[in-house]
């Protein structure tokens, strides 16, 4: 489309081109801003400069007047403006509250720990009352336990089920539609897949919660009604359109002459599809799976509604599961702005973004290379 003639002839043309160019950078800018601002809120956790330790040195109320102003302000955790507006009585009351708070802290060796440090985020710890070191996500309790391992495991469990369910199905359908089926069938199946991808994820979540969960429990007879398996199956429904359309696209981009040559040599349509076209389109199939993975691990509403949301450290697919995305969605509204729980949720959001960014990037690169090669050969 690059007809480049006379478009720099006058000022307006030049200006318009600059503006159009500027606006077209918006997608890049947005990716950058998302990274920057999700990271910004989670940064103190990454750097380990945040503390959730409940134990604080107590300063007796009587010492209030001897303390330097700045020290008193940070001790009471006030902003400069709040501090300036507050009278002495209120501050004294606040100091008494602090003393009371310290008395109320559970008499527990864990209260002194900074649970937001990487050691407790990733490693097991023997909490008071437990008889062995464990991975626990329990942000709303006397001692905030922020171990993200159960959440990562939960996300991976649901994603694995989703991929195992949807990839074979979507891939088979893509082979059938692009290689074996008559054009009329293709014209019927493609709108159906589009329709499936048009179903909002909250509706799939609703369907999984009300219908699939009961049906699957009835068939398989497991204990907990909502679990990683149900969530994974529903997730699979959400990523079938993604895997199908990318794989179908890749298979169609293989030049027709490949198939024709195979058929002319006596291969059956299936052999041509399986032994000639599929290997040629393999990078595209790989990209489809990678994109499906990224979509499944980032999907929120389905797992929030259908996975049961208990952060249990278990490898069984039939236990209730809490994923990264569901945790953010369920907990962010109740956190204190700027508090450690809030920052941890942003931190795991940033991790999620990093994972999907890498998988999208790889898939994009692979598809681009494949397309370039196929167009060159065609």
């Amino acid at each position, binding site marked *: 489309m690059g007809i480049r003639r006379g478009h720099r002839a006058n000022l307006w043309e030049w200006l318009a081109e600059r503006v159009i160019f500027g606006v077209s950078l918006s997608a890049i800018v947005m990716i950058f801003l998302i990274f920057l*601002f*999700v990271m910004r809120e989670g940064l103190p956790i990454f750097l380990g400069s945040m503390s959730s330790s409940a134990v604080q040195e107590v300063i007796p109320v009587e010492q209030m007047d001897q303390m330097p102003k700045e020290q008193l302000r940070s001790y009471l955790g006030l902003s400069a403006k709040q501090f300036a507006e507050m009278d002495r009585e209120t501050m004294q009351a606040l100091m008494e509250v602090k003393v009371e708070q310290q008395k109320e802290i559970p008499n527990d060796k864990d209260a002194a720990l900074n649970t937001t440090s990487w050691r407790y985020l990733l490693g097991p710890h023997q909490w008071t009352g437990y008889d062995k070191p464990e991975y626990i996500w329990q942000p709303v309790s006397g001692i905030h336990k922020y171990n993200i391992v159960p959440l990562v495991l939960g996300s991976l469990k649901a994603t694995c089920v989703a991929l195992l369910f949807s990839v074979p199905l979507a891939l088979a359908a893509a082979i059938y539609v692009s290689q*074996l089926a008559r054009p009329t069938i293709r014209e019927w199946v493609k709108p159906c897949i589009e329709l499936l991808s*048009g179903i909002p*994820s*909250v509706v799939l979540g609703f*369907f999984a919660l*009300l219908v699939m969960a009961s049906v699957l429990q009835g068939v398989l007879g497991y204990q907990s009604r909502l679990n990683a398996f149900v969530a994974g199956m529903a997730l699979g429904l959400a990523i079938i359109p993604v895997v199908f359309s990318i794989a179908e696209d890749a298979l169609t981009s293989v030049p027709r002459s490949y198939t024709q040559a195979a058929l002319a040599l006596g291969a059956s349509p299936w052999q041509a599809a399986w032994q000639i076209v599929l290997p040629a389109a393999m990078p595209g199939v790989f990209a489809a799976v990678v994109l499906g993975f990224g979509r499944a691990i980032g999907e929120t509403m389905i797992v929030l509604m259908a996975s049961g949301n208990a952060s249990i450290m278990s490898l069984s697919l039939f236990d209730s599961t809490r994923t990264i995305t569901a945790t953010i969605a369920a907990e962010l509204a109740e956190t204190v*702005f700027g508090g450690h729980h809030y920052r941890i949720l942003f931190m795991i959001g940033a991790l999620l*973004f990093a994972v999907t960014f890498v998988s999208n990037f790889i898939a994009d690169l692979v598809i681009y290379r494949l397309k370039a090669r196929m167009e060159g050969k065609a």
Partner: protein
Amino acid sequence: MTIPKGGNPFARVRFDYASNGFSALTGLATLLIVAILFVILGNIAYFGWPSLSWRFVTGGTEKDMFNVDHAGVMPMIFGTAALVILMSIAVVPVGVITAVYLTEYTQSNSVMTRVIRGAVNNLAGVPSIVFGLFGLGFFINFVGQNMDAILGKADEPVWGKPAILWAALTLAILTLPVVIVATEEALKAIPNGLREASLALGATKLQTVMKIVIPQALPGIMTGSILAVSRGAGEVAPIMFTGAAYYMAELPSRLTDQFMELGYHVFILSTQSPDIERTRPILYATVVVLLGLTFLLNFVAILVRAQMRRKLRSLS
């Protein structure tokens, strides 16, 4: 292989069980996907249709939104409509201009195009919950709070809190790839002869784009916008922290108001209800309304696109 080795090469080829079996299997997989789709839609239509009434669609809801006799989804339909209209105002111009740049102003294999296209594809794959975090971290906590500080409203935040404007802008970023890809497809389908004719008659590049290319691509641009609206209307995770409300007594009237939304309402009804069996009818009915809305939009988009293809085929 099906070709018999040796013997008469013209002998009738044996029925190839493996090939036909595998072909049938792939066909079955396709059938299964289509069947699942119809089971889902059938289930929702079957249980949702009886509970759907004119009063339900046009009525407001009370504080006790789980009450079957007084539930209505009008405020949610209004909120969703307002949300997607605001979103379209933000996303359509940006998306169209980006697509114009990609197809009209650069060579398709230049580095810049490649980078922009990569960013667009990547943006399409960012998890929706991350958009929610971004909306909160950027629009509310950064833009909104700084606006409050500049306008001197730091005591009682006006902009620095969840609002329909922030939710719409968050969704606009989420749907940007949809608009770009659809518009690009429409622009690419326009025969180059039209551009050449325009340039040959002495039109400048900008005139050609504004008066020839964009009018021709209008149906495609509309398709993209409709698809974006349909996508935006169904997303819940990005608006949970940026503006959607559990319950609002009044309809949103300003950009800084919160709002009720259909998808979010489905989520609330299915997870917060004290008695799911009693809520079931209104839940199904709400899902029917939401699905009806998104499918209607999708359907219109498909029709417009088919129309456009037919017209372009006659052009070239």
